[in-house]
C-alpha cells in the first residue's frame, strides 16, 4: 500500500516535469521569431543570414535604425507614415467608443418601439465581412472624393457592431436606480450619459478601444484601395512598398519591423489585461 502510494506520487511528479518541459519548449518555439526580429534589427545585414545564425548581436548596429527612419529616398517618410497610422487608429478607436457606447446605452436602458429590430439589424452587420463589401465601398469613396484622405481611411470603420454589442451587454446590468436618481435631480440625458454612464464603463471601453486601435493598425486591404500618395500611406502600406522595392538590406528591414511594432508592444505591456480579456475574446470575427 505504502509502496504503491510512493509510486503514484512519483508518477505525478514525472507528469508535472513533462508538462513543464512541453510548455517551455512550446514557449521557445513561439518566441524565437520575436527574438530573431529584435536581435537581427541590431545586426548588420551580412550577419543576419549567416549560417548558423549568430543569436547575439556583436554590438548594436545603429545604422539599421537610422536608415530605416531615413527611408530609401532619404525623406523620412516612415515617420509621417507612422503618424498616419496613429492618427487613423486613434481616431477610429475614439469614435468607435463614442458611437458604440451611445448605441449600446440606448439599446440597454431605453424602451422604444423597434428596439429589437434595431438591435437585430446591427447584429446582422456582423455577418457582412468587410472583404465582401470593400469594392462597393471603394467606389463610394471614389465618388465622394475620399481617396487619399484621412476621412476616407477612417469613415467606414466608425460603426462597429461588435462594439455596440459589447457596450449593450456591459450596460444592461447598470443599476436603473442611479439613472433615475440623476433624472429626478434634473440631469439631462446627454449629461447622464457623459458624466455617469461613460465614466463607469472603463473596462468595456478600454477593451473596445484597444480592439479598434489594433484592427486599424493592422489594416492593409482598405488602405491599399483608398491611399495613393506616399504621404498618406499607413505603416502596413509603407512595409508593403518597402518589401516590393528594396528587398536588399535585411538589417533595415528588421529595424522597420521593430519600430512599426513599438506602439503595439508598448500598449500590450502596459494594458495586457485588456488584450487578454474575456470581452475581447469573443471578437475574433472582427479581427
Amino acid at each position: 500500500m505504502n509502496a504503491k502510494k510512493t509510486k503514484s506520487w512519483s508518477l505525478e511528479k514525472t507528469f508535472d516535469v513533462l508538462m513543464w518541459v512541453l510548455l517551455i519548449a512550446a514557449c521557445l518555439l513561439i518566441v524565437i521569431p520575436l527574438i530573431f526580429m529584435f536581435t537581427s534589427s541590431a545586426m548588420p545585414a551580412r550577419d543576419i543570414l549567416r549560417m548558423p545564425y549568430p543569436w547575439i548581436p556583436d554590438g548594436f548596429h545603429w545604422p539599421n535604425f537610422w536608415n530605416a527612419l531615413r527611408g530609401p529616398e532619404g525623406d523620412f517618410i516612415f515617420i509621417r507614415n507612422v503618424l498616419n497610422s496613429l492618427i487613423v487608429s486613434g481616431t477610429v478607436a475614439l469614435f468607435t467608443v463614442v458611437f458604440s457606447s451611445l448605441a449600446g446605452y440606448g439599446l440597454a436602458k431605453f424602451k422604444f418601439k423597434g428596439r429589437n429590430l434595431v438591435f437585430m439589424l446591427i447584429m446582422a452587420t456582423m455577418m457582412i465581412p468587410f472583404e465582401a463589401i470593400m469594392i462597393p465601398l471603394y467606389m463610394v469613396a471614389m465618388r465622394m472624393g475620399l481617396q487619399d484622405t484621412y476621412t476616407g481611411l477612417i469613415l467606414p470603420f466608425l460603426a462597429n457592431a461588435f462594439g455596440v454589442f459589447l457596450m449593450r451587454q456591459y450596460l444592461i446590468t447598470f443599476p436603473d436606480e442611479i439613472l433615475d436618481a440623476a433624472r429626478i435631480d434634473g440631469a439631462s440625458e446627454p449629461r447622464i450619459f457623459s458624466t455617469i454612464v461613460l465614466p463607469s464603463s472603463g473596462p468595456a471601453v478600454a477593451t473596445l478601444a484597444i480592439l479598434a486601435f489594433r484592427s486599424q493598425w493592422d489594416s492593409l486591404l482598405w488602405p491599399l484601395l483608398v491611399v495613393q500618395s506616399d504621404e498618406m500611406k499607413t505603416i502596413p502600406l509603407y512595409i508593403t512598398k518597402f518589401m516590393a522595392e528594396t528587398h536588399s538590406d535585411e538589417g533595415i528591414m528588421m529595424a522597420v519591423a521593430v519600430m512599426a511594432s513599438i506602439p503595439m508592444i508598448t500598449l500590450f505591456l502596459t494594458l495586457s489585461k485588456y488584450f487578454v480579456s474575456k470581452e475581447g475574446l469573443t471578437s475574433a470575427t472582427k479581427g
Partner: protein
Amino acid sequence: MRQSKGFSMERKKARWGWVFVTPSLLLFAAFSFYPIINAFYESFFNRNLLSLRPPSFVGWNNYTYLFNSREFWLSVQNTLIFAAGTFIPLVVFSLALAILIMSISRFRRFFQLAFYSPAVLSSVVAAMIWLLIFDPRGLANQGANSLFGTTGVNYNWLSTTGMLRLSTIIVYFWKYIGYFTVVFVSGIGSIPETLNEAALIDGANRLKLFWYVTLPLLKPTTMLVSIMTMIQCLKTFSTQYLFSTAGAPTRPINVITLNIYNTAIKDYRIGRATAMSILLFIVMFAFTWLQLKVSRTEEVSHM
C-alpha cells in the same frame, strides 16, 4: 393626471433611445447595408473601372464566368487548402497548450502572455519576419536541416507550390496560436471546480479527468473556436499579399480575397470582383450565423 405624466416621461425616454442609436444606425446604413446591396446589384453588371461607357446589365454572366474560370477555382482551392491546413492544427494545438497551462499551478499568466505575444504584431510585420526566416540561408532551413539530420538542403520554403502554401500556413498558425490558447484557457477556467473535485474523489486520475470531464465540457468552446478560425482563414489576405509582393510566386497562394483585389484593381473588372465578393459573403454568412448560434448555446451551458 399622474398617469399621463408618467406616460409622457416614457415617451420622452423612448425619444432619447432613438437619439442614442441613430448615429450608429446611420453609419451602418451607409457603410454596411448600402454596400452589400450595392454589391449584389453591381455583380449583375459589367462595370469597368476605367471605361467611360455606362455599365450594361449582363445577368448571371459574371457568375457563370467565374464558375467556368480555372483561375477562380484555383483561388477557391487555395483558400480551402489554407483554411483546412490552418484551422485544424490551430484548434488541436491551442487546446493542447491550454490544457498544459491549466495543469500547472504557477506562471499561468506568464505563459498565456508569451504565447499571445505574436498576435500583437501586425500581419505585415509577421509576414516580414517570416520572409527572412524562410530565406534559403535563414532559420527555417537551418532548423529543418538540424531536425532531419541533413546538411545544406534547401527546403524551398518560398518557391515550390506545396512549401509556399505551408509557409503561409505557418505564419498564420504562429500569429494566432496564442490567441486561441487564451480562449481555451478561459473555457477551461469556467468549468466549475467542484466537478473536478467530485471526479477526483471518485478515483479518477488526471488522464481520466481530462477525457471524461474536461473534454466533453469544452465541446462548445471547441466548436466556437473552430468556426472563428474558419471564418478568419477564409478572409486571409495580408500574408499572401506581402509574400507575393516580395517576389514569391502568386499562383499557389492566390486566395480568394487576393483574387478579388487583383480583379478589381489590376484588371478593373468591378462586376466580376463583386460577384466573387458575393460568393465569399454567402459562405462566410453561413459560418457567422453558425457561430452566433453556437455562442448562444455556449452561454447557456455556462450558467
